[in-house]
């Protein structure tokens, strides 16, 4: 692994996973972590405030989707808010105006994420490194301005009063506890899908590109196609996360398309651990919790976030999960 790679995956441990979870691509430590995660998902809503928990899960999925790109392809997108926010807008619009059921609305959010991913990926994939980051940032800013002006987004008011609707047209989701299970399921599916992708042959090629792109090219891989597909997948899942969030809160707004949101998801992933399976979720949990409990301190939240950024970059590049994994000598 090259020293200047953006991700620092700890040494691989070749311990075999628990039998049932091995099929999902988990090793032993990951299986245990996954079981803890499952337990948390089940017990969580009875202990913690469900709405808070749902917000956390939406951001966790968003961060996981983002991590697919930065952690496994090494591409830093600074414009992921456009997929997240647009996914939210389309899910909200389809649920409110077109009368879509919640699962369809979320899928619509994913679809717009994919579409936007194709267009912006087509432009951004042409450059790498910092240029890639700057281009995605600029494109996202353009999408933000478009959202501000398009009629269906409702400008600064956003789309409000979005109904949570009935799952498959049958199950009423208006109670917090009922929609929680949907959100948890969406998160889990997204999480497992990403994990599946990472461990597939496709994912291995992505990692190869991250580690040494010229070499991957010389081995005959059409690197741009691989990057593009990863980008679109990441955008799709970000759209799904945004769509889910819009349904939970009944609202889709400009906040989620703004560049600050792109920065936040970078922060979550970085804090949790780039290129780790569980890192982004942990990072999202920490940041969302912090925002929630420090809300009364106003602008200090921004300062603290900035400070976390600086500390992570200077001294803590493996992130929380990365450090824990290194300490335990496992891969998480």
């Amino acid at each position, binding site marked *: 692994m090259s020293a200047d790679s953006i991700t620092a995956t700890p040494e691989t441990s070749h311990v075999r996973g628990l039998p049932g979870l091995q099929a999902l691509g988990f090793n032993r430590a990951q299986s245990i972590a996954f079981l803890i995660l499952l337990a948390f998902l089940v017990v969580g809503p009875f202990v913690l*405030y469900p*709405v*808070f928990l749902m*917000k956390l899960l939406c951001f966790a999925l968003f961060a996981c989707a983002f991590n697919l790109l930065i952690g496994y392809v090494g591409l830093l997108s600074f414009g992921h808010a456009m997929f997240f926010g647009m996914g939210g807008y389309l899910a909200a619009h389809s649920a409110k105006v077109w009368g879509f059921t919640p699962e369809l609305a979320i899928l619509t959010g994913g679809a717009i994420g994919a579409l936007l991913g194709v267009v912006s990926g087509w432009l951004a994939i042409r450059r790498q490194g910092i240029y890639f980051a700057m281009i995605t940032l600029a494109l996202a800013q353009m999408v933000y*301005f478009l959202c*501000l*002006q398009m009629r269906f987004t*409702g*400008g*600064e*008011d*956003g789309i*409000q*009063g979005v109904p949570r609707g009935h799952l498959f047209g049958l199950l009423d989701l208006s109670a917090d506890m009922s929609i929680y299970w949907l959100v948890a399921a969406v998160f889990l599916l997204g999480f497992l899908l990403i994990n599946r992708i990472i461990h597939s042959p496709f994912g291995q090629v992505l990692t190869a590109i991250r580690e040494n792109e010229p070499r991957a090219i010389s081995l005959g891989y059409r690197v741009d196609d691989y990057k593009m597909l990863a980008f679109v997948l990441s955008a799709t899942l970000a759209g799904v996360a945004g769509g889910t*969030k819009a349904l939970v*809160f*009944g*609202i889709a*707004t*400009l*906040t*989620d398309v703004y560049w600050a949101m792109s920065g936040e998801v970078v922060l979550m992933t970085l804090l949790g651990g780039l290129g780790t399976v569980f890192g982004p979720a942990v990072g999202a949990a920490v940041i969302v919790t912090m*925002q*929630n409990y420090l*809300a*009364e*301190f*106003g*602008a200090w*939240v*921004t300062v603290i976030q900035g400070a976390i950024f600086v500390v992570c970059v200077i001294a803590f590049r493996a992130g929380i999960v990365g450090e824990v994994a290194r300490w335990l000598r496992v891969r998480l």
Partner: protein
Amino acid sequence: MIQDRRSLLKTAAAASVVPAVGLPARARAQSTTIKIGVLNDQSGVYRDISGPTSTACVRQAIVDSGITAKGVNVEVLQADHQNKPDVGSTIARQWIDRDGVDVIVDVPNSSVALAVNGIVREKNKAYFNSTGATTDLTGAQCSPNTVHWTYDTYMLARSTGGAMVKAGGDSWFFITADYAFGHALERDTSTFVKAAGGKVLGGVKHPLQSTDFSSYLLQAQQSRAKVIGLANAGTDTINSVKQAAEFGVTRRGTKIAVLLMFINDVHSLGLQAAQGLVCTESFYWDLNDRTRAFTNRVRGSLGGNYPAMSHAGCYASVLHYLKVVADMGAAAAKASGADAVARMKAMPTDDDCFGQGSIRADGRKLHPAYLFEVKTPEESKGPWDYYKLLQTTSAEEAWRPLSEGGCSLIRT
């Protein structure tokens, strides 16, 4: 502007100590606690027009109401919604679900204001919006739990648009922020300008958060309109005003009407740049003896800020609510926010900030609107002596008629 956090905290501490110390033991034993949540912008562009100053005004209302002497404890919470509707709605939900908050006050930024509106209605608490601008709060999304206290876009348009024509400004050019709020403000104002016999010569829409307004101002000058209407907000407004002064737009007699401006914006602009601007507020600290008395009472706890109409609205709405609480009993007021708001509508209002007034069936608080012109540096005699009154629009005329709002509470 610099806010002294420490002094605010001190007053906060002092205010929360008062009930515990001053109460006879028996009364305290029976007391019920009313929880008021002040939800606003503590860190962003609307900090000065809401922020900690709103909280201080709410505390002042509690002191002035004398409710603690009647055995009711009042607790104040505050939080920063960061101008994000999802943050705002999360806080509102948590406050109500977990912390037992009964009333949510202030809430600038229309999008957050509307988001909170839905939640408070769903949970049957009470909601006094003071700093949100949207007329939807008393129109399409009106709620039996909501009072919209201070101002709205219709009132601003009516006062600034209509009264300005009367004052001679009969041809207009609009510089409008290109999103729903700007469009609504321009549309409403145009209607009143035309109704009063004025003309709209043109307009230009600019993207939100522009930095350079010179080219729009140039287009406005080229139209030779007597009034340039600024239908934008926050830093956009401040930048347009600053650059208008730089280009000497007002030197040739053109007036600039800022459709949404608070006295704190004038303060941060400085009189040099702000002189001659025209704007509407429903409260000015130096308006009459009562407003001055209020300002003197509250000023010490504002850390150098002065109250704008938005802060006055927080004070007055909470004061009125506490009167109702004293009347119907804290337990009943806590049990149903809608009942408390219904009682508030039935009782005429009277406070130092807005004088006598009333609350309409759709939740609209009624009081006069004042068209002000910003003084020149020579005219200003002291700190925050910024406004001179041009026109008053009476409470009967200032607000959107009940029949036009489309509020569902009216039909039933």
